[in-house]
């Protein structure tokens, strides 16, 4: 097996045993990059040469036996909506094309003290709004399994990179499924932690009450390690939680629920089959499996497409050409702002800002945003009730496998419907993971999603790892390495 396909733990062992140096792994990774990037376009910016000094230090640390931990020397890709001091953070938008971050996001400063190398900043749907990475202002990213297909979004760049192995693991962000869906489309693990366990300070906000940063990785264990490396209470983020995890059984003492509403119409047969495959495995191993109904899920898209745009309409108001970013001139500052925002934002971003502005406007608050908040609460209560009788909930991650580029761009609603399975976890703040389970009839990866109640992240990862071992899904897109 090429070293780029190994897990973080395996690589760390090789480093510690001095059978491999971080710089050697790095060169292998960049070999893949140079072969794949021109086609896949996962990265907006690559840091190949910027890391030379850090690499030397990493090599030396292992030589001297002074490793900083499991992530030391590991090449990671970072979604380009996370601030990395001294480099561009563009959110794949013309608005921030030349913006240079003057500060590090908390997750970045957490990671820096553990020694990983950042391969570069990855492509995304502009301002994290989208499910295909087609909304990037700087070109599309292709799905490594089939270049005609999308990698998913909005963290399509990171998912593609991890799938192709131009990084060992990476960070994405998830607001309505933006880690899990591209994970499923690219055949890798995508994990959205419990809301509040990972700091949002330095993550360029889309929808504040829904956004979380999380790992996209090849293996569940890698996701666990990366999660440990980034999580923690942060006093600079008032929504951050000083957390302690709740334990659930991950062995067959656990009860698993299959979400009825996500096994009905609107979801492809292939996707349902994957869930059934997992159910069979669980039953064979003696787990209790039952059907759980969560009626509010049918309204998830409506709730989400009121709350998220409303929050983003205010979060993106700061992009006005005054203090940073693109500026298009005007005779007055109002004109300048209006022109700047007209040119700086792409159509999907404009769509959501206007939708959100309308939902909050005088006379419409109660009917739209106010209603959505109540409905969200009702969904949270439904989940709470469900978790009284099950430990884990499973469903398909996506209604279908990766669709073709351009297939869903004409009708916004059609694109939004592809978030059906993932949105509920964001609305309820729950931890949720997608693990690759198999291939569709067309040979494209499919994933199954597992969710559990808030702050049971460790158990969720343990349970998912057990499934991963049973599924033994090791398929890869063609090898881009040497």
């Amino acid at each position, binding site marked *: 097996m090429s070293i780029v396909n190994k897990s973080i733990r395996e690589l760390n062992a090789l480093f510690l045993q001095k059978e491999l140096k971080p710089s050697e792994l790095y060169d292998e990774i960049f070999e893949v990059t140079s072969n794949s990037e021109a086609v896949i376009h996962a990265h907006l910016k690559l840091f190949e040469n910027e890391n030379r000094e850090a690499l030397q230090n990493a090599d030396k640390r292992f030589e001297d036996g002074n490793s900083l931990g499991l992530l030391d020397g590991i090449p990671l890709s970072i979604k380009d909506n996370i601030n990395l001091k001294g480099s561009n953070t563009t959110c794949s938008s013309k608005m921030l094309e*030349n*913006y*240079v971050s*003057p*500060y590090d996001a908390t997750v970045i400063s957490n990671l820096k003290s553990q020694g990983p190398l950042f391969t570069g900043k990855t492509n995304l749907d502009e301002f994290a709004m989208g499910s295909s990475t087609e909304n990037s202002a700087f070109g599309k990213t292709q799905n490594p399994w089939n270049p005609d297909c999308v990698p998913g979004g909005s963290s399509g760049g990171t998912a593609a990179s991890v799938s192709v192995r131009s990084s060992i693991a990476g960070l994405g962000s998830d607001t309505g499924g933006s880690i899990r869906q591209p994970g499923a489309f690219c055949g890798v693990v995508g994990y959205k932690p419990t*809301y*509040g366990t990972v700091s949002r300070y330095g993550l360029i906000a889309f929808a504040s*009450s829904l956004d979380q940063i999380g790992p996209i990785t090849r293996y569940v264990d890698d996701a666990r390690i990366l999660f440990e490396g980034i999580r923690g209470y942060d*006093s600079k983020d*008032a929504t951050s*939680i000083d957390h302690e995890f709740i334990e659930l059984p991950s062995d067959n003492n656990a009860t698993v629920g299959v979400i009825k509403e996500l096994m009905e119409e609107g979801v492809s047969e292939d996707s349902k089959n994957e869930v059934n495959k997992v159910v069979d495995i669980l039953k064979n191993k003696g787990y209790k499996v039952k059907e759980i109904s969560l009626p509010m899920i049918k*309204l998830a*898209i*409506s709730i989400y*497409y*009121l709350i998220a745009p409303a929050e983003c309409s205010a979060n993106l*108001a700061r992009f*006005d*050409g*005054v*203090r*940073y*970013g*693109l500026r298009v*001139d*005007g*005779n*007055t*500052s*109002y*004109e*300048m*702002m*209006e022109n700047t*925002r*007209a040119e700086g934002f792409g*159509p999907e971003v*404009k*769509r959501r800002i*206007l*939708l959100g*502005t309308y939902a909050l*406007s005088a006379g*419409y608050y109660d*009917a*739209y945003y106010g*209603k*959505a*908040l*109540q*409905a969200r*609460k*009702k969904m*949270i209560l439904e989940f709470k009730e469900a978790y009284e009788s099950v430990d884990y909930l499973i469903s398909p991650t996506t209604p279908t496998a990766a669709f073709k580029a351009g297939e869903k761009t004409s009708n*916004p*609603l059609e694109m*939004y419907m592809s978030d059906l399975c993932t949105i509920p976890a964001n609305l309820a*703040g729950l931890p949720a993971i997608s693990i690759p389970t198999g291939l569709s009839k067309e040979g494209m990866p499919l994933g199954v999603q597992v969710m559990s109640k*808030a*702050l049971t992240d460790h158990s969720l990862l343990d349970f998912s790892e057990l499934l991963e071992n049973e599924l033994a899904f090791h398929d890869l897109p063609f090898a881009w390495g040497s």
Partner: protein
Amino acid sequence: MSDDFNIQNIAKLASINLSEEEQSKLSNDLSVILEHVQALSDLSLDEVGEIFIHPLEKELLLDEDEVRVSLTHDEALQNAPEKNEGKFVVPPSLE
């Protein structure tokens, strides 16, 4: 969607200068989306009780009033599209 839905007013509130083509496309898009979310308004949701801002119902923690130095003057202005004598400069803003 309401009768007085006016894409120009909304664009004004959002401070985005839309072309005519954009106005008509977006007006359409929004009406499609709003039609879909109508289903919510038919719901009676009075029994959900107290709404919390944080999905996990966390409370706000207050921070001690102690100075933490952050950006230097140069760092704060490093991305300024226009600056003069240490200030950000914009076209005239009317009251």
